[in-house]
């Protein structure tokens, strides 16, 4: 025990100091305000943690500073919004998406075809590019003509802002479904499948690299492929009924679907990013930085062009939206019965979604990822790989595949954060940047590659922010004077940054970080 104290003396002192400040802050306000501010801090901290933990795992294992992480957070939010507020759009998009994805499930077939040496020499070099070109051409022809019910970015009445507003009011009228006017469904489907097959084939040759040891065609790929096609057809045929079913629910199940889709898209996007763009650049670290910056800019622009610039909101799921009888709830039981949006806690009012649900999910994720890291084989490989990538590879483990999985996990977490945040703080083009900055500060404070550090840092950042905001409202009386100091809004980010600088000056690796 003594050794432990001696080794971590500085850390213990800093933590004690922080706790002391925290306690002093508690004195300065009434209990109910304190608890509410605490909960708000937990809420912001949880969202920050979702972004920070993903970033930290990616940085720890891959040495990649994914500066696009904030943008991915934002994309998760926007995708979640789309699924939740416009399930018809979602279903319309899902179909071509599944079809395009299907070809990639036959990877085994492609690889073994390529290995058979059916094509040699010059053909081998031209063919994949040709195939890619064909696939892209087909997509360019079909996709614009494929009917997808969307909104209009320019026309205000049909813009996401209005749609959200109406949805929030409970006026939830979906536009009439679009139909296959410009292209026949058979042509569209066939074309998409064809493009997928050709494209996947070309890409697998291009991405080829070294020849794998085995090139067996497993039956699973065919089964996977067929399942995807079936899924697409089913959704297509039953598009309207499914849409209506989802729309009627307008609530918890749909929100859950939105969450899952956002996380899944995030994971998919992450794997894609890692395998195509980041991977070739492992040897040049500073370029990954610039690359992720560039991707971030592209991502923001795409979101702007698809959803427009103005900010809008996302309604809360029905479970947290009640305002009628029995609300505000007097206790959690009351909330459960009436699904109130607010609750009375110690004479103060809190929003159930923001202050209770989000921190709960944050806690669940914290524990979940912790379990993943500590108790699964993948987690073991990640922890070992963060330390010594080379040795892990020397043990016969395909570290690169783990990289992709980790990247997918990190981005999935960020996307989850985005969807969760959307009903609470709304959707805007800049939500990603501010959360990324918060996350970076949290990581700097807690320790860049430490998982518990990410949690601690996020907690501190969230709490500090909220407490300063609260004091901005009630003011801090300066002792022995009549002056009351009211921190203004700019001081909020400044204070977290100041905390970061102070912590770093004392403990350069962050509170829980270790020397590399």
């Amino acid at each position: 025990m003594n050794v432990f104290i001696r080794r971590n003396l500085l850390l213990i002192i800093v933590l004690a100091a922080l706790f002391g400040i925290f306690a002093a802050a508690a004195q300065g306000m009434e209990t109910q305000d304190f608890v509410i501010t605490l909960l708000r801090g937990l809420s912001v901290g949880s969202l920050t943690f979702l972004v920070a933990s993903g970033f930290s795992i990616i940085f720890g294992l891959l040495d990649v500073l994914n500066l696009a992480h904030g943008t991915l957070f934002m994309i998760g939010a926007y995708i979640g919004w789309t699924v939740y507020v416009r399930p018809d759009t979602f279903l319309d998009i899902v179909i071509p998406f599944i079809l395009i994805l299907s070809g990639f499930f036959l990877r085994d077939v492609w690889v073994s075809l390529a290995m058979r040496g059916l094509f040699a020499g010059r053909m081998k070099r031209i063919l994949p590019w040709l195939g890619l070109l064909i696939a892209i051409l087909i997509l360019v022809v079909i996709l614009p003509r494929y009917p997808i019910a969307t909104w209009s970015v320019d026309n205000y009445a049909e813009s996401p802002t209005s749609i959200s507003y109406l949805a929030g009011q409970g006026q939830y009228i979906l536009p009439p479904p679009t139909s296959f006017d410009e292209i026949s469904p058979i042509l569209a489907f066939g074309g998409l499948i064809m493009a997928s097959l050709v494209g996947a084939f070309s890409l697998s040759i291009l991405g080829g690299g070294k020849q794998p040891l085995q090139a067996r065609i497993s039956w699973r790929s065919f089964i996977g492929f067929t399942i995807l096609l079936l899924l697409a057809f089913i959704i297509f045929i039953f598009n309207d009924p499914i849409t209506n079913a989802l729309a009627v629910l307008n609530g918890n199940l749909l929100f859950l679907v939105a969450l899952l889709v956002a996380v899944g898209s995030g994971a998919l996007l992450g794997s894609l990013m890692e395998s195509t763009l980041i991977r070739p650049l492992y040897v040049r670290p500073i370029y990954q930085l610039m690359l992720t910056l560039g991707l971030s800019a592209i991502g923001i622009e795409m979101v702007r062009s698809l959803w427009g610039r103005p900010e809008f909101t996302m309604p809360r799921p029905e479970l947290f939206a009640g305002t009628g009888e029995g609300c505000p709830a007097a206790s959690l039981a009351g909330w459960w019965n009436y699904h109130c949006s607010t609750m009375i806690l110690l004479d103060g009012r809190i929003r159930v979604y923001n202050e209770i649900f989000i921190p709960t999910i944050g806690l669940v994720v914290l524990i979940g990822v912790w379990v993943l890291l500590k108790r699964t084989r993948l987690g073991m490989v990640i922890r070992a790989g963060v330390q010594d990538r080379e040795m892990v590879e020397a043990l016969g483990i395909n570290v690169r595949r783990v990289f992709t999985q980790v990247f997918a996990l990190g981005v999935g977490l960020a996307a989850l954060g985005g969807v969760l945040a959307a009903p609470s703080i709304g959707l805007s083009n800049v939500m990603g940047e501010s959360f990324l900055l918060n996350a970076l500060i949290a990581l700097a404070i807690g320790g860049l590659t430490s998982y518990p550090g990410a949690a601690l840092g996020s907690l501190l950042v969230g709490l500090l922010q909220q407490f300063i905001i609260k004091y901005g409202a009630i003011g801090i009386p300066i002792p022995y004077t009549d002056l009351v100091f009211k921190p203004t809004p700019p001081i909020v980010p400044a204070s977290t940054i100041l905390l970061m600088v102070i912590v770093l000056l004392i403990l350069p690796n962050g509170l829980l970080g270790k020397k590399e």
Partner: protein
Amino acid sequence: MEIKKPLSTLKPNQGMLVTLLVFLLMPFVVGLIEGASPAQVWVNESGQSKFLQGLAIEIFILALYALSYDLILGFTGLLSFGHSMFYAVGAYLTGILLKSFGLTLWATLGCVFLAAILQALLFGMVLPRVKGITFALVTLGMASVFHVLVMSAELGKYTGSDVGLQGVLVPDFISPATERLRLYYIALTILVLVFMLYKRFVNSPTGRVCTAIRENEGRAKMLGYNTFYFKLAALILSSLTAALAGVLHTIYQPIVSPNVAGLGFTVAALLIILIGGVGTLSGALIGAVIYRLLDFGLRRYLGEGASFINGAIYVLFVLFLPFGIVGTWRLKSLGIKAGRERLLGLFRKTNQ
């Protein structure tokens, strides 16, 4: 130090000299093309020439800014996310001192340089404790604080908050409206002088130590160099240059937008030296030209989509031309493994 004969310095710098000549003559040549006589150009009455001079001045300012970033990132290996602050302090301070305090230009310059040195010291202060990425984050933090301060309502009286600082009274003798040609040549001269200074610095013993620090700080330390002072020297020089660029900015454009204090502007510097070639001084110049022209052209013809193209260009350069234009050109023309390895060394981890 041997005194170089004028002719021997000319030969290797042929490209630079030709470019210099082009820029020296540009206003008059353009004037001739649009039908204005040299006399008209001289008194600032030619439309096209004046417009292009303005564009060129912006390029010179950007080049100065990019050069300063290349010095710390490309040569000394210090990754900073707060570089825009160096520039913004120059720009805002100039504006505030000229407008709200009515100081003379020279007094303003003096104050700006003082502020620049203080800033460099501020950034440098954390150096002994903090390395690599963490240093980058701290610099980001400091710059963010400045950005927030500049945008705040409390200081709006001086800074103009989120609207920006407006209505700066620029001394007549270099007013961009009436004396643009003079401003043009002044800016060009400053750029040339600074560039030559940088070239001297980089090849001086101090500069070489900075390069050594970028390659392998541990080894430099073991050779007995107190790397802290060298890094600080680079920071100070960089800060002064960026601040100078900021001063020119305010003189040329009597409106200072808070964007110049934001992360986006630091990223712009990064992009410029990426395009030109990180760690090659001339890369900053070429990058600035391309960046500004692209920005101008894209905005004119594409409007909204410009940022998208910006990001796409970033990505394309990183994937296909990571050494930038000058870097790739040097690689190809050198063709020696040594040259390639030298440049490759630039891209190992910065300053761990």
